[in-house]
């Protein structure tokens, strides 16, 4: 959490120091989040409406899938419960990342209007401040909706459940959330340079999640390769889900690749940390 370059020069060194800084960052994150939650609840009607709205907005995607299945029995060879499983895991993973870090896309506008400077002078890790800025509790709507669809699909998919397979489901969602969180962070770091390009990261976060809601068989192989090897979103749910559902992977990768989710998530965090540090180090105030 506390991977900000600005405080890299702090006197803390070694493993204990890192732990202290992470603790510090988390505490700051928690405090800022609590503040935004209180502020959100001041307009109670609006909060309820927006949370419901988020619930319904993400529900629309699923409604589209239901409407499609009112005309067909299988999409790309996948049945409705199977697509619902993909939908639930992808959307829940994105929902968690979106709740934790979703407001980071405002970083570009902070750089543009100069309010980024304010964050740098506070004795709190910059990453924690940016991540918690405008924390949007309403995003629980997406998580709730995804959880409902996921729960429904789990009762319907034809899987011979073993303890390992049961464990794979929450692991998928968690690793997926970490992968999406890393994408949010890289996107935010990119905005130190691009400033106005907030929408590019939407392609990879919201767009990525939409992509993962459909079976990989629907898409061109090159696209599937791209989201496996370049932006490894396929590890969020496609690969583990194919294993769980007993489907062949369209790329024909070796079987152990399906379990690489945690490794990929850790790697992505490393990349995100580097990107964030580089971005922050290259930050130049717009001045006035």
């Amino acid at each position: 959490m506390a991977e900000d370059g600005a405080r890299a020069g702090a006197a803390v060194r070694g493993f204990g120091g890192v732990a202290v800084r992470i603790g510090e960052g988390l505490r700051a994150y928690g405090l800022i989040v609590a503040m935004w939650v209180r502020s959100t609840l001041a307009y109670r009607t609006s909060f309820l409406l927006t949370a419901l709205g988020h619930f319904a907005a993400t529900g629309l995607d699923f409604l589209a899938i239901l409407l499609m299945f009112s005309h067909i029995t299988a999409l790309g060879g996948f049945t409705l419960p199977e697509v619902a499983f993909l939908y639930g895991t992808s959307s829940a993973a994105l929902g968690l990342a979106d709740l934790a870090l979703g407001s980071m896309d405002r970083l570009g506008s902070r750089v543009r209007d100069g309010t980024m400077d304010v964050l740098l002078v506070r004795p709190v890790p910059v990453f924690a401040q940016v991540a918690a800025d405008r924390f949007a509790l309403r995003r629980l709507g997406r998580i709730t909706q995804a959880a409902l669809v996921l729960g429904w699909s789990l009762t319907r998919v034809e899987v011979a459940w073993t303890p390992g397979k049961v464990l794979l489901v929450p692991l998928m969602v968690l690793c997926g959330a970490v992968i999406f969180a890393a994408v949010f962070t890289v996107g935010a770091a990119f905005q130190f340079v691009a400033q106005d390009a907030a929408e590019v990261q939407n392609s990879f976060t919201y767009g990525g999640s939409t992509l993962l809601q459909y079976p990989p068989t629907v898409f061109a192989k090159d696209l599937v390769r791209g989201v496996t090897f370049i932006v490894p979103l396929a590890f969020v749910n496609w690969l583990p889900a194919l294993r769980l559902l007993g489907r062949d992977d369209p790329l024909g990768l070796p079987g152990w690749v399906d379990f690489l989710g945690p490794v990929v998530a850790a790697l992505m965090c490393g990349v995100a940390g580097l990107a964030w540090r580089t971005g922050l180090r290259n930050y130049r105030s717009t001045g006035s």
Partner: protein
Amino acid sequence: MLYAAVAAGSFRRYATYRIATASGVFTNTVFGFIIAYTYTALWTARPHLGGYDLPQALTYAWTGQALLAATGLLTGGGMDELQERIRNGDIAVDLHRPADLQLWWLAADLGRAAFQLIGRGLLPMAVGTLAFPSALPASAVTWLLFLVSVALGVVVGFALRYLVALTSFWLLDGAGVSLVAMLLCMFCSGMVLPLNVFPGAFGEVVRLLPWSSMLQVPADVLLGVHDGTGAALALAFQAGWAAVLLAAGRLLQSVATRKVVVQGG
């Protein structure tokens, strides 16, 4: 000519943010690809669903991405700014100006839409046409009708968002209403799935609501679904909704402005 100047200024304002435009084009193209592949799977499983063949369905998908920014299907299309002015009281200054509030914002919205149609619409459409089978018309008349239909769609979209923005006079924080309005718009415009795929009576009703003017009707005009008189009827349908909704906006505006109390002195 005041309103023409407002529209031109708004056009230039949106044209200033080139990186934002480029990143928007990128995002629309990515989403276009995702949707086009899912439509391919759907229309392969059920050819002629909703009366479209596969190229028509794909052109529909890309038309949606091309019009997304222009008709403000997803974003507030600048209306969040009006909401913010109502919330923080700047609206009092606007009401003092020797210009009509609704016409001012309509002009600004038309300028914005004109830029976003060109800046954010053309490229995704071109990419989609090159990468997938397409059913774009060859006749110039169809294109002209399409442009008229898009313009009417923009006006209907504006009229709806203006009504939503005015609710801020009562609710102060308009975020909730805006979100609900956006949902209705996404679902009922045909952005989520073409409206002719919606089943039975439900589909019939949704196709008659104003939101269909924002995507379904322009796309059908482009795809040549309507013949001569059919196209005229489609445009009349849009114009009718535009008139009704603008009039409703006028009415709400007169009620709202009577409520404004300017504090301080």
